[in-house]
């Protein structure tokens, strides 16, 4: 296996976009835009993994020229190279499913750097937040995917990860390479760039390649505060407050114990899931 190429895909977004209280229009400020916390964690993971593997870490984005500041920060933190996929007539209100962004990224990365060994992203971007781009990236590259990770480590050529499960449980994964991984904004914090590297990055050229992302503009027709519909919930009949609390939390309810199913066959895994859903009454 050759040198490990770690690509970190960063989403450039205004994390402090505000909604005009009078018109409902979303107002963004490119000066305050940058990588979200999850993307910054992804970059830190990328730098660490590339360092451990003796490989290269490159940071890429699909964004307008203002995003070059974000890529310069990545350079200052230690990225070996950066690349901006330029989108003509960038409109932050364009709604993209993540497919278009993934296509533009995959195309540019392959053309500029070749096939990556690992692609990292944040789990959700700060603006759209659907978390779908990493899955589309995995499909574009044809790689395995492990999404929404809270830990990621590379040792002896193997990538291991931890993912959050319901009820506080954790799932440990052995991720086969090449892979696309997305990480939660947790566990690590992007390193503080040193001053010499920061000064050097300030004047560094940011390579740019043309790209295109198809999308539909989002129009806000009306804006109002989110108010979930009230749901009538009669109090439990127990006279003892403690028992009422236990009933409400469901702490003493009988549950099926968790069952671990290990299979390499996707068909078997699908049958297992469908059988479970049928047994629970979710499927006829």
């Amino acid at each position, binding site marked *: 296996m050759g040198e490990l190429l770690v690509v970190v895909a960063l989403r450039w977004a205004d994390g402090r976009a505000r909604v005009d209280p009078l018109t409902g229009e979303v107002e963004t400020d490119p000066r305050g835009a940058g990588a979200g916390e999850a993307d910054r964690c992804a970059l830190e993971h990328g730098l660490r993994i590339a360092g451990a593997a003796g490989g290269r870490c490159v940071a890429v984005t699909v964004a307008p020229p203002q995003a070059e500041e974000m890529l310069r920060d990545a350079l200052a933190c230690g990225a070996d190279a950066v690349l901006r996929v330029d989108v003509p007539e960038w409109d932050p209100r364009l709604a993209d499913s993540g497919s278009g962004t993934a296509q533009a990224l995959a195309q540019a990365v392959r053309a500029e750097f070749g096939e990556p060994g690992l692609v990292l992203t944040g789990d959700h971007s700060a603006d759209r937040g659907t978390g779908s781009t990493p899955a589309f990236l995995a499909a574009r590259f044809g790689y395995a995917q492990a999404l929404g990770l809270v830990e990621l480590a590379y040792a002896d050529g193997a990538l291991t990860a931890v993912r959050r499960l319901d009820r506080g449980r954790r799932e440990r994964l052995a991720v086969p390479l090449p892979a696309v991984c997305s990480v939660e904004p947790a566990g690590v914090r992007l390193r503080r760039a*040193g*001053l010499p590297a920061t000064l050097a990055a300030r004047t560094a050229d940011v390579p740019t390649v043309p790209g295109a992302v198809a999308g539909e503009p989002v129009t806000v027709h009306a804006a109002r505060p989110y108010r979930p519909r009230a749901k009538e919930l009669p109090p439990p009949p127990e006279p003892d407050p403690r028992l009422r609390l236990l009933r409400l939390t469901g702490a003493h309810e009988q549950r099926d114990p968790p069952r671990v199913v290990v299979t390499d066959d996707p068909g078997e895994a699908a049958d297992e899931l469908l059988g479970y859903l049928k047994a629970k009454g979710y499927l006829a």
Partner: protein
Amino acid sequence: MRDRAGPAGAAVTVAEPERPAFDAIVVGAGPAGSAAALELARAGRSVALIERGPFPGSKNVYGGVVYGRVLDELIPGWYERMPVQRWITRRQTMLLSGERSMTVDFRCQSWGRAPYNGATAYRAEFDNWLTEHAQKEGALLVPSTVVTAVLRTAEGRVVGVRTDRPDGDLTARVVIACDGVNSFVAKQAGLYPEGQAEHTTLGVKETLALPKETIDERFGVSGDDGVDIEILGGTQGVPGGAFLYTNRDTLSVGLVLGLPGLAGQGRRPEEILAELKRHPSIAPLVRGAELVEYSAHLIPEGGYHSMPRLVGDGLLVAGDAAAMCLAAGIWLEGVNFALGSGMYAGRAAARALAAGDLRRLRDYRSLLESSFVLADHKKLRKAPGLVLSERVQHRYPGLVCDLVEGVFTVDNPKPKPGIRRLLRRSARSNGVRMRELARDALTGLRSFG
């Protein structure tokens, strides 16, 4: 050795750098810093402009008027490109006393045409715009970087700064401190006198959103025209003042409160601001507005006598760091003094570097004295004391409102009282002696005349 920022931090002693990394380091990318960096870069000097925020203006709290005349020299034709909210064409000075108010209202439509007079602006936009000019000339902006200490030689000459980044020491032949009020750089260099708190005020500001048409209607303006209202007497007894400015579709309403007075009263500034917004003269202007921002910042309002030494060995101080804010009652100006002092600091540094003689940094002071920057401050040196005095703050607004109320109250069948009698009565009821009034009038005349 202490690495943290703040007044407790200490300068770091280093060896004389053989080859300084830059000709000049400017600390702070506000109006003063960007003006200094622009002048230095234009002179062909390498200059690093260090900014603690992610972009210039991001850390700023401002709700005032930018008087751009000094920009004629720095950026000719500035008014065609500067990011402006509204051009001020209407200026009011308002005295509040109880539920009463007395307003002097001046309108000048020519201020809304080139070459203009002053404008409201969002500093996040204004500062960024100014820094871009410096960057285009070659200045290197280093954002998200905090200067934690001054680097000095054993002889005391400033040769650089230490930042909060790893390997964060940066050397230069000249350092210009434009790091704002309570300048840590100037303090570490030993340029600041003690007792700054009494010369410092706390500015608090709310940004309130209203449709542009509503602002136009309420304030009697149209297009890009705007209003500047300076208020005396709306601070619930705390020495200071209040203000209300129109932006395109927001209002900036706030207070400037003397620190000792505020601490002495034990009141929260937001409570005082809420009282101001409830005043019958202010409430109709802000009614129905949506609060979009609340912010607070210190302001150096002590004027000429509270300024630090402006020139140190290898160091110049400009802008709010040099207490260049002019708070002289009818004149409340800061950005223009920051621009001017920054420009002259950059110019003096460039000349000293060109001559290879850092003793010529002393020319900075003479440049300031021969310009409006120190000339105005020197002339108005007694004004801050007068404006923040107990009589002007507490008694005179009541005196004026009593007098005007007496003049315009029709009290038939009694005959109209004479103005002199009303004045004496108003002075007596507000605890003002005619001798004090005459003395303050004379001081005001000497200061403002």
